[in-house]
C-alpha cells in the first residue's frame, strides 16, 4: 500500500477533476494528477509518476521508473498492486443487481 507503483500518464481524461489515464505495467487505470499538476495538464502526457492508491504523487524519470518496477517485482508488489486495481474494478460490479 505504501510503496506505490510507477505508471506512465497516457491521456488527460478530465481537466476539471485533474484526472488522467495511466498505463501501469500494461494495465490502464484512471488516476488523479492533482499532486503533480504544477503546469498545463497536457505537459503530463508521457510523464512517469509514482502512483499511490490511485494518485500520482511524484514525477520520476523513465530510468527511475524502470529501476523501481524491477525492485517491486522482486518484492512481489507489482502483482499485489495490479490485483488491487482489478479488485477495485470488481467492487463496482458487486451487488450491482441488488
Amino acid at each position, binding site marked *: *500500500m*505504501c*510503496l*506505490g507503483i510507477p505508471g506512465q500518464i497516457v491521456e488527460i481524461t478530465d481537466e476539471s*477533476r485533474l484526472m488522467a489515464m495511466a498505463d501501469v505495467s500494461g494495465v490502464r*487505470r*484512471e*488516476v*488523479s494528477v*492533482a*499532486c*503533480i*499538476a*504544477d503546469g498545463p495538464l497536457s505537459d503530463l502526457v508521457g510523464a512517469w509518476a*509514482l502512483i*499511490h*492508491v*490511485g*494518485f500520482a*504523487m*511524484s514525477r*520520476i*524519470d523513465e530510468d*527511475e521508473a524502470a*529501476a*523501481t518496477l*524491477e*525492485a517491486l517485482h*522482486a*518484492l*512481489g508488489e507489482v502483482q*499485489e498492486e495490479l*490485483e*488491487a*486495481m482489478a*479488485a*477495485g474494478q*470488481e*467492487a*463496482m460490479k*458487486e*451487488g450491482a443487481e441488488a
Partner: protein
Amino acid sequence: MKYADEFRDPKAAKALLERIGAVVDQIGATKEKPVYIMEICGGHTHAIFRYGLDKLTPEGIEFIHGPGCPVCVLPISRVDECVQLAERPEVIFTTFGDAMRVPGTRKSLLQAKADGADIRMVYSPLDALELARRNPDREVVFFGLGFETTTPSTALSIQQAAREGLTNFTVFCNHITVPPPLKALLDDPHMILDGFVGPGHVSMVIGIEPYQFIARDYGKPLVVAGFEPLDLLQSVLMVLEQIRDGRAEIENQYSRVVPDHGNPVSIAAIDDVYETRPSFEWRGLGEIDVSGLRIREKYRAHDAEEKFGIGYGAGPRHVEEPEGCACGQVMTGRIKPVACPQFGKGCTPEMPLGALMVSSEGACAAYYQYGGARVSEVAE
C-alpha cells in the same frame, strides 16, 4: 555474499557492504555490542528481509523494525468499529485489501463479509467515490488508513465529494502520522536506538523538516531512504558514518523522489481536511499524543464517526490484545518475532493472531516468509 549477486548492480552492492564493514569496525560495533538501527517503514522491513540485508550486513548492526506498517498498528477497537459500520444494512464499506484480515474482537472484515456484510475491496478512495455516485441510495464508507503517503488521497477525495455535494460518502478516518510515535519511542527509557532509516514515500509527502527534532533534541541521525536494495545499503552507510563522526543530522538519500520540502499540494490538502486528535491508540504501543488525524468540522458531513456516532468519545476505548500475543514487545524492538510463543504456531500469515503477521510489511510476517537462517539462529 550470495544474495548480493542478485542485485541489479552486484558490484555496487559489494562495494557498499565493504564500506559498511569498515565503518562498523571503526565504530567498534560487534555482535555483543551492536549499533541499533531502526527502519521505520514497513516497506523497508519487507525489503530488508527479501534481500537478506540483515544477513549481508556485519553482525555489528542490529535492525529494529519500526512501527511503520499501518495495518500492523491498527488497534483492535478500530477494527471492531469497522465491522460495526460494515454490518449496517445501508452501508457499503470500502477498504484496501490489506486491512481485510486484521483480527478484531469478534471478527475480521473478511469474516464480516463472509457473514453477509457489504464490504468491497477497493484500490483507491476514488473507487469509493465512484461507488457513492453510482449508489445514491446507499451510504458508502471508506476506511481511511495509513500514514502520510495515503493521507493526501483521502483528503483530496473528501474535497472532491464536497465539491460534488455527494452526501452519501464518508471516511472512517484512521490516518496516523510518523513523527509522534518516533518521539514516543525515543522517550521510552528502555529503547536503545542509535539511528534511523527514514521512510521514503511518507517523506515524499511531508519532506524532511518534520524529522529535525530527532537530530536536534535527541541527537540521533536519520537518513530518508528509497526501498531498492542499494538505497537501503547506502542509507545504512550514511547513518553509520554519522554515528562514527559523532554527527546527528537529517539526510536525504532518496532525493530523486523526495523533495526536502515535500509535496505542497498534498500538504495543503491534508491541512485543509484534517486536524490532529489529542491522542490516538496504536496497537502494541498504546495511546500516543497527537499521532492521529480526524476530519475537520467543515467536512463533518463526510466524517463517518460523526455521521454514525462511533469512535472516540462514543464508548470505552481500550481492548486487550489476544492472550499470548507479544505484538507490543516485538513492535518496540524488545523481542524478536520468533521469541513470541505464538510465532508459527497459533499465529501464521494464513491465520494471524496479531496484526504484525497480517501484512507482508509486518515484522512477524517478514520473519515468517524470509527468516531462514536468522530464525533458527534466534530460536536456539
